[in-house]
Structures are given as C-alpha cells and as structure tokens.
C-alpha cells in the first residue's frame, strides 16, 4: 500500500510536476490576496486569456514564450485602461471586449500559422510534459515575483487599501499599480504552464478568498493563502497520477474544496459561525427582555 503511494515519486516527470506546481501555486496564492482585495479577479482572468497571442507570436519568432506573453498581458491591461479612461463604458464590459479580442487574435494566429505549438497546452496547461526550459522560465518568474512581493507587500497593501494615503505620504502609486499589474501578468504566464489559461484565475483568486474567510489580519492571510497554494498544488499534481486526470483540474478542485470548507466552518466569517452568532445574539436579547 505504502509502496503504491510513493510510485509517483519514482518518476522524474512527476517530481518535476509536483515541484513546479507547488512553486507556481504558492506565488499565485500570495498574489491572490492582493487580487481579491483590490477586486481584480476579472482582471486576472482577462490577463490570462490575453497573453495567448503573445505566446503565439513569441513561438513564431523563436523567442521564449514568457516574453511574448508578458508583453501581451501588459498591452491588454493598457488597452483596458485606455478604453476605461476614454469612454464611459463599464469596466466589466471593457475587460470583456479587450480580453476576448486578444484571445481571438491568438486563436487566429495559431490557426493561420501552425508552429507545432499546441493550443491545448495554452488552454489547459501541460504540467506533465513540461520542458526543462519552461521549468527554468517558471522558476525565474516565480523568484522575481516573490522577491518583489516580499519586499513591497506593505506598500502594495497600503495601495490596495487606501491609495490616497499612499499618495499623500509620497509613495508612487502609478508605479505600484504598474508593479501589481506586471506581477499579475508575469505570474499568469507561469501559471499558464500548470493549469492553462482557463484555470489560471482560480489559482489567482481561490486561495486569497479562502484565507480572507479565515482571518482578519492581512499578514496571516498571506501566510494561510500561500500555504494553501503550495499544498493544494503539490497534492493536486500528485493526485493526478492516480486519477489519471488533468493536473490543473486536480489542483483547482482541491482548492475549491478547501474554500467550501472555509465557507462553511470558518470560525468567524463562516456560515455556521454567523448562524451561531446570530442565534446567540437572539437568545441574549430574549433573555434581556424576559429579565
């Protein structure tokens, strides 16, 4: 039985998949705290789809795909910002327009100029077949993102919470906005490998949302989310061996399970807790009234 459980560890591709998934999952989860609090979930989804034409172009030109993806992401963000500033169209509509057009452009490019690059890889990820160069790429992205996040998380927190205060003490909020956007773009690129464009947003939202239910302190929220990201991603990759299922699917289902558990049982913000609290409050009032 034990032997069976360790089988995945005997394969190098499984070890790689577990390691890279955990790494990406952790960084995504750390970032997810900012994404959920800033209300950028839709933005994360949009970016992860918008990078597709960048990937296609980069592959056609023989560049590392992360480069193309990153710039396509930033271009999409800039386009959204531009449309938002210049028209009164609502933000969700703007995001919808921009990311679908980018995604469509990507599809078109790939279908017109087949390069041997598989569309499935972009849309659903391909963790088990990940190339060494792509692993290196993911490690570099995660290392840079994590360094920036660890150094600047307090500034980013203030920026998300109260941009006016950040500005009034002389922080460069334009730069902070750009940093957060670039991080989102870069990390989405890395996550593309693991779970594919469709599920990136889950990795960028679910851990943060779960941790939010469990604590009222941002520092702890970061810790909980990252731990959850690392563990679920590693476990998801591991489980995919036995289920013979998609790695992305396993990771995201695991994360959702944890979210549901937190949703029901969280000590303060969970459903049961609030019900208990309101029952207690009612009982207390009744007692007061009868006394």
């Amino acid at each position, binding site marked *: 039985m034990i032997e069976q459980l360790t089988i995945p560890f005997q394969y190098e591709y499984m070890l790689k998949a577990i390691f890279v998934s955990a790494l990406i999952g952790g960084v995504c989860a750390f970032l997810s705290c900012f994404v959920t609090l800033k209300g950028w979930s839709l933005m994360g989804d949009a970016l992860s789809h918008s990078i597709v034409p960048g990937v296609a172009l980069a592959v056609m030109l023989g560049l590392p795909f992360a480069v193309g993806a990153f710039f396509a992401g930033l271009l999409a963000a800039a386009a959204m910002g531009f449309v938002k*500033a210049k028209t009164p169209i609502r933000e969700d509509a703007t995001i919808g327009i921009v990311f679908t057009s980018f995604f469509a452009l990507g599809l078109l490019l790939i279908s017109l100029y087949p390069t041997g690059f598989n569309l499935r890889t972009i849309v659903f990820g391909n963790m088990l077949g990940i190339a060494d160069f792509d692993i290196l790429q993911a490690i570099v992205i995660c290392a840079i993102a994590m360094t920036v996040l660890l150094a600047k998380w307090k500034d980013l927190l203030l920026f*998300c919470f109260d941009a*006016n*205060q950040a*500005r*009034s*003490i002389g922080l460069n909020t334009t730069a902070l906005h750009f940093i957060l956007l670039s991080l989102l773009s870069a990390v989405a690129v890395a996550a593309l490998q693991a779970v594919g464009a469709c599920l990136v947003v889950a990795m960028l939202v679910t851990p943060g949302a779960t941790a939010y239910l469990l604590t009222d*302190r*941002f520092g702890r*929220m970061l810790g909980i989310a990252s731990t959850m990201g690392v563990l679920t991603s590693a476990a998801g990759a591991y489980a995919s061996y036995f289920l013979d299922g998609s790695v992305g699917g396993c990771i995201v289902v695991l994360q959702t399970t944890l979210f549901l558990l937190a949703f029901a049982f969280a000590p303060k913000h969970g459903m049961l807790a609030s019900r208990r609290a309101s029952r207690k409050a009612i009982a207390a009032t009744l007692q007061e009234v009868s006394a």
Partner: protein
Amino acid sequence: MISDQASLEVHVSDVTVTYNNGHTALHDASFHLRSGSICALVGVNGSGKSTLFKAIMGFVRPSRGSVTIGGRPVKEAQKKSWVAYVPQSEEVDWTFPVSVWDVVMMGRYGFMNFLRTPRPEDKRLVRESLERVKMWDFRDRQIGELSGGQKKRVFLARALAQGGRVILLDEPFTGVDVKTEAAIIELLRELRAAGHIMLVSTHNLGSVPEFCDQVVLINRTVLASGPTEEVFTQANLALAFGGVLRQFQFDHSTVDDSDGRAVTLLTDDERPVVLGRGGHLEHRLSDEGKQGDES
C-alpha cells in the same frame, strides 16, 4: 507630536483646477493659513471642496497657480509626510483585513525603511496616537467592526502618528454623535495649540464658529476667507449658498415679539447657524461656552 519646526504656512495662490472632462471645478482660488489654526471650508455640494483638498495633497495638478506648504511645493511636503488626510467614510473599504493598529501604523510608512519595518519609535508613536483618540483598547479590532465615530478617530490617529502638520479633514462630522463630535473638536483644539494647521470641510454650519478661527467660503472659487468673525456673516453665507440654505427668519415670529430681537437661523441641513440683526454672527469665539448660541 508637538511640532519641532518653526511655523508652517499653507499658501494657495490663484489655483485653477480643470478635470480631464474639461470641467473647471476651481478657478483663481487664493487664501493662506498660518500655523496654529483650524479653518472651515464651507460651500455647497460641488463647489470644489474636495477638489481643493486634492490640489493641496497634490492629487490633481493645478492648470494654473500653485500651492506651497512651508514655502515648499506639495511634492516635497509629501515626501516629508507633512500633509495628512482624514478620508470621508465612503472612500474607505471597511471590509479590508487590517486592524486598527495596522491602519495607524500605515501613517508611519513614510519614515520607515525600504521594507517598512516598524522601529520602536514608530510603535511608540502609534500607541500614543491611539491613546490620544481613546482608541487604544480597540487596537486589535478589524476596522470594519467599529462605529462611525470610532472609525473617524482611528483615521485621525493615523494623521497624528504621521505627524502631519497640515491635516485635512473631509466632512469629519457626518454620522458622528454630539459626544464624539465634541471629542474630535477638543482634539483639534489641542493640535491647534501645538501649531498644526487643520482644514475642515463641513456642512455643519452651526459648529463652525465654535471651533474654527478661520473660514474659507468657496463656490468654484474662494468667495471670502479670513477670521471667522469677519467672514462668517449672513451676507457672505448668502453669497456662498444662494438660495440653497434653509432660512428661518424670526423677524416676525413670536421670538421677535417676546424679546424684540431679530434672529436669523441658517442651515445647510445639519446644525444651524444663528445670526443676529444685520447678519452678524452672534457667537463669540472663545472658551466661554456656547451661550449666545440660542436666541
């Protein structure tokens, strides 16, 4: 918290602010404030109060004119954390997972290192500020779990911790009960004595003469500015508010019959201001209390 530098002045000269949509919210606004004053910023909705705040904080660049603080441009004042801002409640995300302590500590970021690690000095100042607004006991509460008045006090504590020598308060008394209002006013008075400059936008006309020694009346430009007794008159208020103010003229009321004095009561929906015959402010600015407030 006591000011360690010589007097600081705020100079607003000929400031014109035009928003991207081409709307000029403020034109040729000029006034100045000396250190150790509380100034009320009074005007109708849309008269440009928040815009003026934004100009003083450097959030909007005046298309003409300039703002200087202590003789320096706004950008420099920002770097020194000289200008502190107490936001309107609606501007804050109260569901954010930060505690009272965290929020006040944010006022100290400008003085910390690259990683924003609090030094003992920062912690001491945060504690002092919280104690000063009587919110120390609430330091571990999530900020959304406070009453309206407590929330205001937390942000005031942040301004204190920041050591802001110019403190801007955007409508600090909306949704605050009389007791908290009195406590906030008391605190502002202490800060005035310590040489701070406070600019308070308010619709609460009645309390203006009570604690503000300066008034700036504004309607897309500065209509009048200066000491309260001189500026806060019926004529000027009528100018600033046009027909918007509710006005109760007691000339022909029983009040008038009984004691023969004419009293005017002006209100912009909150506490009314009471004016005597000829539109003079009947309130004496002093610590003698509020007698003379009522007719």
